[in-house]
């Protein structure tokens, strides 16, 4: 029975190829790497097809394999490329974060009320802006952040796989969150709140 649910390798490409590609592209931000990840995923799926339990849908099963492949790629990159990139290091560094606060440690600019989360999440437009704000983060920081927040990878596992300390990870996630927040504040939420005030 499971065989018929899983279908043939050819059908994986037809039925799930675009979704896998989209997912891979979102995380790798690179067409070639996305293609590579999808290919690796389908080849691995071919090899492991006997282990498909039929409990999950074929799509979920394939996405699970794809996640592993993407993490593998990141891990490989982390080893290949030197870790410190001056441009990335400069993004929201300690000085810039300090500048968000006045010397006594209070916020320099009042934080904004973002409105009803349920309502915002239902709007496709918000998700588009969220995606654009993610794209605006420096690549390596974005990748790490998405690994944690979008792929929901375990913190401990990320530290192990990318050979960084927990403190290091927390600092980077903090910087990414501040950056994303700033971008959302400027591009969406601020407008929504102002529009609501005018209306």
């Amino acid at each position: 029975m499971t065989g018929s649910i899983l279908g043939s390798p050819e059908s994986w490409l037809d039925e799930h190829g675009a979704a896998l590609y989209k997912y891979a592209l979102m995380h790798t931000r690179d067409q070639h790497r996305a293609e590579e990840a999808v290919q690796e995923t389908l080849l691995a799926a071919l090899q492991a097809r006997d282990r498909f339990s039929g409990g999950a849908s074929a799509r979920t099963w394939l996405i699970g394999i794809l996640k592993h492949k993407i993490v593998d790629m990141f891990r490989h990159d982390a080893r290949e490329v030197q870790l410190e990139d001056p441009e990335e290091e400069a993004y929201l560094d300690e000085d810039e974060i300090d500048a968000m606060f006045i010397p006594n440690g209070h916020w320099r600019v009042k934080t904004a009320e973002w409105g009803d989360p349920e309502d915002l999440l239902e709007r496709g437009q918000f998700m588009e802006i969220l995606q654009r704000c993610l794209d605006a983060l420096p690549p390596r920081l974005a990748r790490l952040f998405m690994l944690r927040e979008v792929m929901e990878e375990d913190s401990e596992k990320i530290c192990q796989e990318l050979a960084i300390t927990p403190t290091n990870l927390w600092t980077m996630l903090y910087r990414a969150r501040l950056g994303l927040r700033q971008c959302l504040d400027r591009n969406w939420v601020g407008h929504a709140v102002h529009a609501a005030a005018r209306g």
Partner: protein
Amino acid sequence: MLTCKDASRLISENLERRLGFWERMGLRMHLWICVNCRRFERQMNFMHAALRKLGKRAEVADDSTEFPPEARERIRKALAERCEHDHTH
């Protein structure tokens, strides 16, 4: 007393690890008196939820993305080759 800067960092780390007792107490006290950090915490939780949703949405996404036909073809070939290879061995 925590500063807003300290508090913002703890709010972020609260999403990563279980804060220590004194950290939790300090943060709770700070949030009790600081409306800006309360809003910041809501923003962080909201972003957290939105990002998860983005991930889920990507998993169920259909053909809304352009999957380059050349890429599809190359993968199809690789799959076919592997299948053939498996049959002959």
